[in-house]
């Protein structure tokens, strides 16, 4: 793990910060959102061969409203690494990593559907869980639980 962090700080310098987790996990915060693809490529080539999960968290009160979470897994040696990517603004846009990990394709579509985070250079950025002309992004905090429109997909 130290090796990986050393590698990341070597390439990304100040834009990488290590946060200790609550129960012994390692979180890495990448402050420069334009370099996420580069970081993923670097991690993939250095053992973290699997992108287990990609999701987001909405913090409406913070300056960086969204935080993307890339959950990485290295099989040999066995390591888990969570890369966080804070994003600014109401409708943020970030580089897609679906060319690095094929599985990111659907995960990014889900994040777009649920949070409204757009991904640049994504092959097929459409809604995945809700229907196509649905309005609103359900997992944002301001979205009411029961929804604000009661129309069916028709």
């Amino acid at each position, binding site marked *: 793990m130290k090796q990986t962090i050393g590698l990341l700080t070597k390439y990304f310098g100040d834009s990488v910060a290590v946060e200790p*987790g609550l129960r012994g996990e390692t979180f890495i915060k990448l402050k420069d959102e334009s370099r996420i693809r580069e970081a993923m490529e670097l991690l993939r080539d250095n053992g973290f061969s699997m*992108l*287990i999960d990609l*999701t987001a968290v909405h913090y409406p009160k913070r300056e960086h409203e969204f935080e993307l*979470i890339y959950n990485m897994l290295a099989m040999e040696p066995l390591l888990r690494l969570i890369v966080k990517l804070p994003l600014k603004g109401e409708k943020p846009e970030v580089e897609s990593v679906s060319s690095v990990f094929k599985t990111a394709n659907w995960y990014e579509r889900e994040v777009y559907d649920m949070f409204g985070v757009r991904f640049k250079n994504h092959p097929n950025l459409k809604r995945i*869980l809700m229907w196509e002309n649905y309005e609103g992004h359900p997992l944002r905090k301001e979205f009411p*639980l029961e929804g604000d429109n009661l129309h069916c997909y028709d």
Partner: protein
Amino acid sequence: MRGIIYTAMTDIKKEIDIKTDRMIVNMGPSHPVTHGTLHIVLELEGETIEASHTNIGYLHRGVEKLGEYRTYQKFIPFTDRLNYTSSINNNVGYTLAVEKLLGIQSPPRAQVLEVIACELGRIADHIVCVGINAVDIGAFTAFLYIFKYRELIYDIFSRMCGARLTTSYTRIGGVSRDLDDETIRMIRDFLTRFPSAIDELEALLTKNRIFYDRTRGIGEFSLENAIQYGYTGPCLRAAGLEWDLRKKMPYLGYENYEFEVPTGTRGDVYDRYLVRVEEMRQSVRILEQAIENIPEGPVIIQDHKIALPQKEDVYNTIEGLVSHMKLVMEGVQAPAGEIYCATEAANGELGFYIVSDGGTKPYRIRVRPPCFPIFSSFDEQVQGHMVADAVSILGSLNIIAGELDR
């Protein structure tokens, strides 16, 4: 004579320009093989699939959003309905995640009970997957034979926790009820009867020529591709990698049990079937070890800030009453922070990512479903196969819409 007909045919061919466009075939959302609610649009060239487009979300119920409005205990019933063929594995996965967030561990007896529950759930899940996959291909007998044994598991579950399918067996810091002697007897009985049932299943399917031809080499998926797509569980093992979280990152004391991780070589439908069958045998092995070594002691943690006190205490002591009321009305107070906890569910890695802001409700709860990344590879997997093969591939991936869409 033949020549005349031949020229006549070519004339017709010249006259009518036979359309050679791709045919679009719609599978789902209500279709017997999509068991659940998937929508697949296939582009066919003759009978060969040229491209496929999958459409999901027909069972999106907003579980993650609902979780943000519920306390940590109240989310347990929602986990039942994620992967409803093995609800109990989701219960265990979720409570382990919350226990990790709280920094506690369930007592040793509860851990063994959870292992027993998990392995029974895994067997039930594999029975459904293998049985339904066989039905889709056309072997109805295997389904009827093996489903008898799933009823036995459900009888055990209903004695363990009062429900057949939606179990909600675990609690934060332990399990809801102890096993009684009758249930242990039933599990022993099941363990003596089930291995012969697996033999029966294998006799019906493994060397069945039709089944073999329909599954061998279908949906072949290389290991690199599987890792790229984030495969976990039986599908990854069928592709040839010995990867099981129970072995690699043991939880619930899985390191104390002896079992093997079966792997395949080609990653096709047949290999997935073989891996699942072998996993059932290994689960029986784990169960045999677990049922003999259940330690004595409580089944739930004795901290009344986390687990409910005994009913007698609630009725007779003021401390019991107060802690019961506080727990029911407010819920468990969790420290602020973020954790990720993964367990090996029947389908693959089931992870829970919980963001807590220090309250009694999770700020954000993310379920990492095993079959979401697996199903995303479906489009690539069916390319070049026949339409009928799409059915067997879909069955072998074991897509459960409840956890796919959440």
